[in-house]
């Protein structure tokens, strides 16, 4: 099962709007996608689950995808994280 590890860079962590964007992006794919942060695991398509991961700035998240579009899903989520969720620094 393909997986990647991403590091959360933006200040608020994977909360609020960034979490919403992350879940929305995951929802575009058919694969089952799992996000793992430390001991917490979350269905990447569930906003409530992703929020309870408690991923802050600097957290490493393992994303695992299972399904026909698994690779594409992982790539898209990595790109979204790279873009820093469009967050502008102040």
């Amino acid at each position, binding site marked *: 099962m393909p997986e990647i590890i991403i590091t959360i860079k933006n200040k608020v962590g994977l909360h609020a709007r960034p979490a919403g964007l992350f879940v929305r992006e995951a929802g575009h794919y058919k694969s089952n996608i799992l996000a793992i942060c430390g001991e917490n695991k979350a269905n990447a398509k569930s*906003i409530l689950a992703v929020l*309870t991961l408690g991923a802050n700035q600097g957290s490493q998240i393992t994303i695992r995808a299972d399904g026909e579009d698994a690779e594409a899903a992982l790539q898209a989520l990595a790109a979204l994280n*790279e873009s820093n969720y469009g967050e502008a620094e102040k």
Partner: protein
Amino acid sequence: MMKTIQGVGASPGVAIGPAFLFQQEDLSYNSYSVADPQAELARVRAALQTAEIQLNAIYEKAVVETGESEAGIFEAHIQMLEDPELVETIQKSIEVDRMNAEKALMDTCEHYAQTMEAMTDEYFRARAADIRDIARRTLRILLGKQMADLSLHSPSLVFAYDLTPSDTVRLDKSMLLGFCTAEGGATSHTAILAKALGLPAVVGAGPAILDLIEGETVIINGRTGEIIVNPDETTLKTYRQKMNSEKDLAAVELSAAGSPAITIDGLKVEVVANVGSVADSEKAIVNGAEGVGLLRTEFLYLERQTAPNEDEQYDAYKAIFDVMGERPVVIRTIDVGGDKELPYIDLGHEDNPFLGWRAIRMCLDNPEFFKTQLRAILRASVGHDIRIMFPMIAAVSEVKKARVLLEESRNELQANGIVCGEKIQVGIMVEIPAAAIMADKFIGVVDFFSIGTNDLTQYTMAVERTNKKVAHLSNALDPAVLRLIAKVIEEGHKGGVWVGMCGELAGEPKAIPVLLGMGLDEFSMAPALIPHAKAVIRKNRVTDCKQIAMDVLNLASYADVEAYLAKIKP
């Protein structure tokens, strides 16, 4: 009898008025085992769907009343309603445990709310309130109940145990004087909304506030968190004066904001706005902006996977130019770098993004990308007074190269018979000390300078803006920065180009006399600061200001400048 309750100040200001007690509606329900789980499931699905329709309507209303970013909370609510895990858990509770719809919904939501509440961050506790809000909304629909009455018939202060985001949207804003809640912290939704509406609010005041009698007179102080119930005449008088003097002053300044800013001895300077959207531009005009001194264009480029095309940019710029009409608009070309990252341009990782490949540096290396923006600006500027500003200029050669690209863009458009704006001024943002020091060498290449004090301070003092440990060194009123500003203005005027300022310093009341004394032509600031800045300018005399500027430029430190400015009378 007069009584004081201490809460947490969440949004500044004083409000006095009768209390309106908001009681949540009774949504008690029965728990029972269901015989037909499929029918029960259908009930929940229908209720969730209705809730989503309601939330979409609330979102639309919130966008109009409080703006898009505050309304974002309801988008989050919609996303929670659609959460596959939430729906699945409810479904299991019904199918496997034979729970009725109400219990399955509330148990599931409460489970999530409690998980959030157990987390340490205040942010998550606010999310618990969001989950309970959508749970109550859906439950209300399941029970077929009406929403609790929130109609204010006279101007009132609203007191509640807690206000859900959707409750606050329902409130009639024209009758609302302020909020007070028993629960919540300074970052709660009520606090954020109160700030967006410009209303005083006190949160976390405890359940005692619910013992108030409806209609009782109350004073709330959103700065100190004080709630004074049944104030005596003396207290009432003191607070009324306080409230009125603040309000009167702001009202007087706003009513005069449409007139030009002319000093006592007759010098007229331009007061313009920093904007980044159509909404900002409209606000700018209401507040008396004579134009735009800085239109940020980054909003078009962020939060997306592909670069905005020419037509899209044209539409966005034109919408803002149209709001400003004949007023001048300084539009800054894209200013991003390694600290922001765009999915469609590989900016690479940089250890020092503020010193790296950003803004004009990146644009000059990506001419096609840059020219797309320039063509959009040229097209949108037809019929308007537009000035193009290049950010992050360190050397004259960069301006020359950017101008060549601008001319190429114009020629490309004209070759295709597309009309471009005429007489477009071209200038630079002075934010790198090198540009300030070499200002005289830019004469003949630029039509104007606009000083960006935030970055100019950062680069002059070698202080990263976001690093708290060195923040004490970061003051735009440091004599080192002031000397650079004075130099730019002096060289600009010698060479016949006008000089503006679009950094935070331009809207800082205590800095205004100094800048007037140096001869700054244009002051650009956040729209809300304009009425007061104009009032300050009108109280000054250029002859006095010149002396102030000269004195300040000879001081040795920021502390000395602060002390000096504190002593002069406005």
